[in-house]
């Protein structure tokens, strides 16, 4: 991470222990999960106390519970993480926060029973929300009896969170879906997240690496900074072995 990146995280406004661009804005849990992952892999990014506080705050937040509804197939009693406090749990914030808590465990930070149970429930939610043929969309697999389609980018993120659940049938189905789709993608975000996922799962990623590099050369991802950062991280695997996302 660049000096600018460190400074940005230090500058982020605390909301309790969570981080936000602006003290008045709702804290974005997906962003906080990602920030925690970076802080765990690069101790120079945030102080140990702030990292620890951030992880506790993440563990303490959960999505709202909605009544079970026949319009949706999922189990609404399961709670993962919402994008912002006071809303329902969705796949992307759940995946980043779940991965951060798992990373906390493997980094030797003491983990309480409460955090262990959040990890278990987060995994159950992701498994429950997977699309029938594998993969994930934003977080509804069936609405009004219709199977919804998975997205490549969200699938890659959810798979990162389930990388230690290789025997789980949902993981296998979703990985197969991603392997079938990754090279067909026309966006930097899908290619970059797929490449990170391929690295973590130790899949052959040469063709995907080449495709992403060409895509960057041709399109620069429409100037999207988040996508650019993810892509450059994915392309520079030799420097860091994708350790920020690997358990």
């Amino acid at each position, binding site marked *: 991470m660049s000096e600018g990146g460190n400074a940005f995280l230090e500058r982020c406004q605390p909301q309790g222990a969570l981080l936000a661009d602006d003290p*008045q*804005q*709702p804290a*974005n849990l*997906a962003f906080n999960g990602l920030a925690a992952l970076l802080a765990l892999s690069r101790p120079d990014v945030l102080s140990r106390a702030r990292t620890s506080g951030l992880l506790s705050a993440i563990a303490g937040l959960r999505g*709202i519970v*909605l*009544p*079970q*509804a026949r*319009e949706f197939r999922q189990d609404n009693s399961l709670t993962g993480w*919402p*994008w*912002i406090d*006071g*809303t*329902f749990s*969705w796949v*992307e*914030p759940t995946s980043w926060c779940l991965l951060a808590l798992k990373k906390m465990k493997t980094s030797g930070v003491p983990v309480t029973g409460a955090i262990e149970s959040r990890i278990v429930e987060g995994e159950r939610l992701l498994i429950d929300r997977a699309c029938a043929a594998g993969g994930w*969309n*934003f*977080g509804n697999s069936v*609405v*009004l009896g*219709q199977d*919804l*389609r998975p*997205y490549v*980018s969200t699938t890659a993120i959810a798979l990162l969170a389930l990388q230690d659940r290789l025997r789980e049938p949902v993981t296998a189905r979703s990985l197969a879906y991603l392997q079938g789709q990754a090279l067909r*993608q*026309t*966006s*930097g*975000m*899908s290619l970059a997240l797929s490449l990170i996922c391929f690295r973590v799962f130790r899949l052959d990623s040469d063709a995907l690496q080449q495709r992403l590099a060409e895509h960057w050369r041709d*399109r620069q*991802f*429409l100037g*999207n900074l*988040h*996508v650019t950062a993810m892509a450059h991280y994915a392309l520079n695997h030799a420097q860091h072995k994708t350790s920020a996302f690997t358990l």
Partner: protein
Amino acid sequence: MRSTKRPPSLFSVSRRRFLGALIAPIAFGACRSRPYRAADFTVPERSAVCLSPAADYGVDFADVIGRALGELGVDLRGRRVLLKPNLVEYDDGSATNTHPAVVAGAAEAILRAGAAEVVVGEGPGHRRDMEYLLTGSGLDHYLRDIGVRFVDLNLADVRRVPLRSRFTTLPDLWLPVDVLRADVVVSMPKLKTHHWAGLTGSMKNLFGIVPGAVYGWPKNVLHTHGIENSILDLNATVRSHVTIVDGVIGMEGDGPIMGRPRPVGFVAVGIDPAAVDATCARLIGLDPFRMPYLVAASRFLGNIDMRQVDQRGEPISRYRTRFDLIERLNGLRLQS
């Protein structure tokens, strides 16, 4: 964004008895007293909606839309204009999005009408992969050809804006500066059914200005506070000055994403978004007076009664049809 209390919402009701709530008389329980200051709003005496033929996406939309804007007397000279299409999801052969030919045609028409600047902006509610949507739908290609800039409203700079009505009970929303500083906001919906709201019209289309970077994907705060309530608060706060509907090929059945394409063959243009939505509802066989958000809008935002709506261009009878509806929306059917 601070919310103290969640209102009785049609969305949360839907999880128990959605259909019953949807076709019931307006149940905005929070609004026994009006959730807005009546003095802040004026419903126009009359509203005009212009229907223009467009048999397919090969027509000259700059000409079609330019003539409709002229018919309605829209003055765009020197204005900064933001076009807000409906860009949701891309799938070959589907009719999910406002067609890029219509968006580009509108941009050209508005520039020809003397606008100082035209920008296209959208913040899709499920997908945050904008490059995928722009390339898949072809919109980036069309906009490059005419030199018009696209803004991802999910990621744009934002400002906190107090809401001008309180159907949701939210005091404010963070909204993109690109929308707030536009002199003219043009809502460009696709003519589609919507499995919760009934219709994806001009008013529902404003969900796309709510930034995902602040509220997430989906923009769940709008759902938990009630889809219909959120439609009303957004439209009370951000005015769409012009609506241009892509009714060339609509979507029937399980819209706004999983439905089937249905050729209809028109473009609708109007100033009053409630009047345009009511007209489109009638065109596809829905009764605006059975649609709670339109009924509520008619009290402070616009006209939905045909007696107050002047039809310009082609007669409504030319395009009137009955879209297939999912069962739960049958209660919204226009009784003929």
